[in-house]
């Protein structure tokens, strides 16, 4: 349904259309942003706002020239759609762009710290971020359009490896972001783990309850309407309100039955957060399970019945394999959504990466906000990419 017309054939190979417009557009935008915006921002201390340094001032002529050269290579590659491995090469170039930009920013930070003392903070500027996001978009675009599976994975893995190596080398240690991390290393790891626990528990709750509801709606189609209407109301309630809504009833409940507290049930903390995440995941999971199962043709189920399969066998060998693409998509979308929502858990005392975001907002410490927000975004992107990869791996054989 969501597939727009004209998507099926690759239009780039048509005669006359010998340009890949998107990479060209993205690299042109990145170029403009680099020339206009500051590459890094140097501030006298953590809370004062700083002055932007252009790419030229920050990275010197050599660094600036190498970044611009990579943008040029991407533009050249984009102009040659007939080239073998064109997509993979664009992906690799985009990854190099990201790693090199980060390395240059890290080097600038080290130089500034050596010259102006420990209090100086060097944070990443608008020009850097535009370049980095441009690299990310190019990478995603090349991975999406490359048809070969190894070709999809290679640029992504190479970029991840490059970024990991860069971080491990310690060359980024003087960036403001890294210094925010360094002073709260243990707390960061704790909150990251807590974020994963909250998301995982919420997801488990949503999968079990939502899966059961979806199955029920599939078995009893007449009940499907009211059930989905009720779940839709839950989904309509703003996420912040849903987290906060559970505080009152749970406080009253534990007030009436103090024994519940020993089970970890309380008005604030992880319990209401997991409950809220689970409630939010109910509708997508239930709808996905229902849609996936309903899309299996009745004739297939009847054929399986006719072959003498038991109910359990029908579920295992026909329903689940045929509904698998939809089920995996449901899992991916729900997981990504819950990772984002779990950020709000910090507001009701449940911890997670939101802790840093809200602390940073309270202290107007932009880099602390960045630490939390970027980690949440990275987590969501990694989960999305990993589940897309898993989907491709599980559905290796063409379905029809």
């Amino acid at each position, binding site marked *: 349904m*969501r597939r*727009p017309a004209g998507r099926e054939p690759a239009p780039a190979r048509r005669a006359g259309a010998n340009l890949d417009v998107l990479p060209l557009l993205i690299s042109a935008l990145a170029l403009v942003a680099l020339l206009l915006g500051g590459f890094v921002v140097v501030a006298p201390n953590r809370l004062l706002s700083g002055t932007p340094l252009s790419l030229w001032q920050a990275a010197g002529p050599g660094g600036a020239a190498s970044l611009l050269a990579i943008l040029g290579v991407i533009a050249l590659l984009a102009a040659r759609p007939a080239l073998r491995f064109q997509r993979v090469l664009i992906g690799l170039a985009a990854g190099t762009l990201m790693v090199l930009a980060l390395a240059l920013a890290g080097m600038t930070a080290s130089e500034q710290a050596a010259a102006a003392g420990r209090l100086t903070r060097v944070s990443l500027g608008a020009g850097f971020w535009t370049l980095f996001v441009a690299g990310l978009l190019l990478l995603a675009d090349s991975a*999406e359009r490359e048809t070969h599976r190894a070709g999809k994975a290679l640029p992504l893995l190479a970029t991840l490896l490059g970024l990991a190596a860069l971080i491990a080398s310690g060359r980024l240690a003087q960036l403001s972001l890294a210094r925010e991390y360094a002073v709260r290393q243990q707390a960061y790891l704790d909150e990251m783990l807590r974020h994963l626990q909250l998301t995982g528990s919420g997801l488990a709750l949503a999968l079990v309850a939502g899966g059961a509801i979806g199955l029920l709606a599939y078995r009893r189609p007449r009940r499907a309407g009211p059930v989905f209407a009720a779940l839709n*109301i839950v989904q309509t309630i703003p996420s912040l309100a849903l987290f906060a809504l559970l505080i009152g009833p749970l406080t009253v409940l534990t007030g009436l039955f103090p024994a519940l507290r020993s089970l970890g049930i309380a008005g604030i903390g992880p319990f209401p957060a997991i409950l809220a995440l689970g409630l939010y995941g109910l509708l997508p999971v239930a709808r996905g399970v229902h849609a996936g199962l309903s899309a299996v043709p009745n004739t297939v189920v009847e054929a399986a019945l006719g072959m003498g399969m038991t109910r359990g066998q029908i579920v295992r060998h026909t329903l689940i394999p045929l509904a698998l693409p939809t089920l995996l998509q449901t899992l991916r979308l729900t997981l990504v959504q819950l*990772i*984002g*929502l779990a950020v709000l858990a910090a507001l009701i005392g449940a911890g997670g990466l939101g802790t840093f975001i809200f602390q940073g907002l309270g202290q107007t410490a932009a880099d602390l*906000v960045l630490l939390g927000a970027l980690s949440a975004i990275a987590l969501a992107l990694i989960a999305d990419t990993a589940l897309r990869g898993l989907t491709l791996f599980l559905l290796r054989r063409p379905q029809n």
Partner: protein
Amino acid sequence: MARAVFWTLPIWSGHETAAMRMMSVMRTAGRLARRPVVWVGAVFLALTFGMDGLAPHLGFLFPAGTRLVYTRASFPELVASHALLTGAASLIAIAMGVAAALFATRPAGRAYAATLDRLGALAQTFPPVAVLALAVPSLGYGALPTAFALVLYGVLPVMGAGMAGLSSVPAAVLEAADGSGFSPAGRLWRIEMPLAAPILLAGVRTSVTIGIGTATIGSTVGALTLGSPIIDGLSGDNPAFVLQGTVLVALFAVTVDLAIGEAQRALPQRPN
């Protein structure tokens, strides 16, 4: 729909008297009162304007000594601010989303449809709170970063639904329109848009619902919305403010969702 015609026809075709007109009005009112949007909306409005009067009597729900009346802004003000922020951002988002969908389904832009789809999917993986927080350093605290995040998240469902709706119009219908001499603009306006409207409106419904939710979170970066009492209550350990804010914003979201649902029902159903 069919029932409505059945009830009103005899009255309007017969000899009209004041009593009959009265009965018809009452019947319409009775029919209206059965729609959930009316009573949910009524409860929402009553609580919006009555919260300041009701709040002092809620003391029995909370620990002794809890401040019960939210004083930073009155609830009608909060609702107005929330509605204005969401409404303005939604209008921009709908205009941008429809424009993108139109572009992606015209001959000139069809090559970009897959790209727009992909960008939308990528943007949707970004957590709203993270985007809100990231907008603060460049846009400052307050309504501006919230409006930015609202527009960003509002565009995606409208664009997706617009593309799905416009490309779901059967090719035979388009050919028939061309054959009967419609100009491209006329075909778009009088054939394609009406046929795409139900799917597009579903996207608008999702977009506005997400908008109300994101605006609520916007109070963490200083926007004045119904999320403000929730955030103030959570940080100031005041369950009364949390409850008042949550109940009102939940009712607000459900009312708006139901109202758009009514608009969807009012559209002529597409035969399938």
